């Protein structure tokens, strides 16, 4: 029924099509694998970054809590008490840098006595000693009050001095963690920008030949199935020659042109 050439061309076209499709399927599979690999890698990047961010966040939180502990009520009360004691001693001339360089502290009693008084009577001396003692106690009390006020405020170890320092320290530690978080996030954005490997299919240069063979072959098959000549019928049509009346004489266009419009236009023409 069918001519072998039609069948052969159809088969050739089919083989080419199948080959093309198999190649495309292979490429598609490779692409799917690449996308899967990319997804896994991106997942790992994301998890790693989440871990890093969490570690750094905890570091910042730890610094914040440490800073908070240092300025908590109990801690401040303790520091204030210690500073008050230190400052009180210092203001009374005890400790480093409390007296003029190279001089020893002089007691109030030694400093108080006026010249000529050292030869006074016993009652006078006792009275002087008693009053010096009272004055000393009074001065000490006032210095103690000054130390107390200073310890709450701007003395060397006072709360007004140390609290901002502790907060600055905690803030610096938090800044460091945030700085690292920012940097890590920047690197992660670069990792995120990685794209999957692209597998693209490029048709064979022979694809057109196979398509033509398929087209020709199937036309021939159809022709043959209708009882025609198969590929011959198809080919004759493709090349412009009539297959309806093959015995008809060829068209003579020159005659047609010279006979004019009144002549039979169909004369000498094959149908």
């Amino acid at each position, binding site marked *: 029924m069918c001519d072998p050439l039609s069948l052969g061309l159809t088969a050739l076209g089919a083989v080419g099509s199948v080959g093309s499709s198999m190649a495309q399927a292979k490429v598609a599979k490779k*692409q799917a694998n690449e996308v899967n690999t990319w997804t896994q890698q991106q997942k790992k990047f994301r998890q790693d970054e989440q871990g890093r961010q969490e570690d750094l966040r905890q570091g910042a939180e730890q610094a914040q809590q440490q800073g908070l502990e240092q300025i908590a009520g109990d801690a401040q009360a303790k520091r204030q008490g210690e500073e008050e004691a230190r400052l009180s001693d210092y*203001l009374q001339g005890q400790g480093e840098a409390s007296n003029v360089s190279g001089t020893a502290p002089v007691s109030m009693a030694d400093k108080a006595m006026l010249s000529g008084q050292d030869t006074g009577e016993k009652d006078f001396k006792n009275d002087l000693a008693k009053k010096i003692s009272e004055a000393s106690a009074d*001065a000490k009390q006032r*210095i103690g009050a000054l130390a107390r006020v200073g310890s709450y405020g701007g003395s060397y170890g006072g709360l007004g001095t140390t609290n901002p320092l502790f907060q600055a320290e905690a803030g610096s530690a938090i800044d460091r963690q945030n700085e690292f978080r920012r940097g890590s996030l920047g690197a992660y954005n*670069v990792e995120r920008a990685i*794209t999957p490997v692209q597998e693209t299919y490029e048709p064979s240069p022979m694809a057109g030949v196979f398509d033509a063979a398929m087209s020709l072959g199937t036309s021939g098959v*159809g022709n043959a199935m209708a009882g025609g000549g198969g*590929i011959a*019928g198809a080919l004759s049509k493709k090349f412009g020659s009539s297959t309806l009346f093959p015995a008809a004489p060829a068209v003579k266009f020159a005659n047609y042109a010279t006979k004019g419009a009144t002549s039979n236009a169909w004369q000498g023409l094959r149908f």
Partner: protein
Amino acid sequence: MCFGGGSDKSSKQMVQMQKDEAAAARQKEADRQDRINSGLARISAAFEGSPVMGSRAKSYTFSGVPTGTTSGAAVSGMPGFTYKRVGTPATAATQGTPTYNTGGGHDFGPSGGTSYSGTGRAGDQGTVASGNSGAHSSLTGTGRGSVSSNGTVSYSGGTPATAGNQRWVMVGPDGKEYEVGQSGSWNESYDTGGRSGGINDAFYNKYKQGIVDYYMPQVGEKFKDAKDELTFRLARAGLLRSSMANTETTDLSKQNTLAEAKVRNDADTATADLRSRVAAEKQKAVNQLYATEDPDVAANQATAAISNITSEQPTNTPLGDIFSIAAIGGANALKGYSSEKFKQKIPGYQKSTSVVG
């Protein structure tokens, strides 16, 4: 390629470049963090000084190694100390060459229908498998078969297992090996709490001392002048050795004490201000460090580099083309069929013939 297979084009090279860029960005960030850490340490050392380390003897008793220890692993908390596996390892027994003999009329050995199994270590007695006595008994277990009724087998050249004496020791920095249970001592380096260099208490005390040295003599001079004036006035009034003189004297002295305390308090407060200024300067130095290590610059550069590497979104090549081609083929066949049928209806139409056959 063959039969219209075509070829695939991959962007692996481009993606590899992106990966390299990302890895470089991650490494740069790690390096940047290291530089920040070391920069902060330098700033800290510059402002607060370096810790003064001391050395002290510490005793220990080597009690054994943690699970999973490998030879050469460092001992936790003891710098310079490592664990080491020493001694001869245990060896497994090796099988000698068997010699099979017949006995009691029965073959023994691989060729005689009686089977033998076991490791066959020299010097070990073989055993007859339970219920297998007789002509086709089977020797199982370890060792040399020596059953008279079933034949004998002897081994030569095997070696027995050895226990070995392998064990863990701890090796000190000087190379000395310590066995389990052995005690010793080593020098531990520790932070004494002191600081060397930097802006320390000595720095602040010096500042404070300067203030005291400047103002305190003025107080002393004023006090001396006041005392002289008081002495003169009391003497002129004939009250130098009176109760009133004592009152005035002690009052003057108290004022002096309070004036001195005020000088010290001012010095202390000024030193506190200095301390705050130093802290602010330290913060400036830290900010400068962060400014020189701006991560946005590095990250933006890397991201821009990746963006420049042309990339596309993933696309899966459609698999349905084969059906499209088949449809075209089917359409062509239908077209050919219809065309031929149509032509056959035309009077005078002559069928074309096949070009082949």
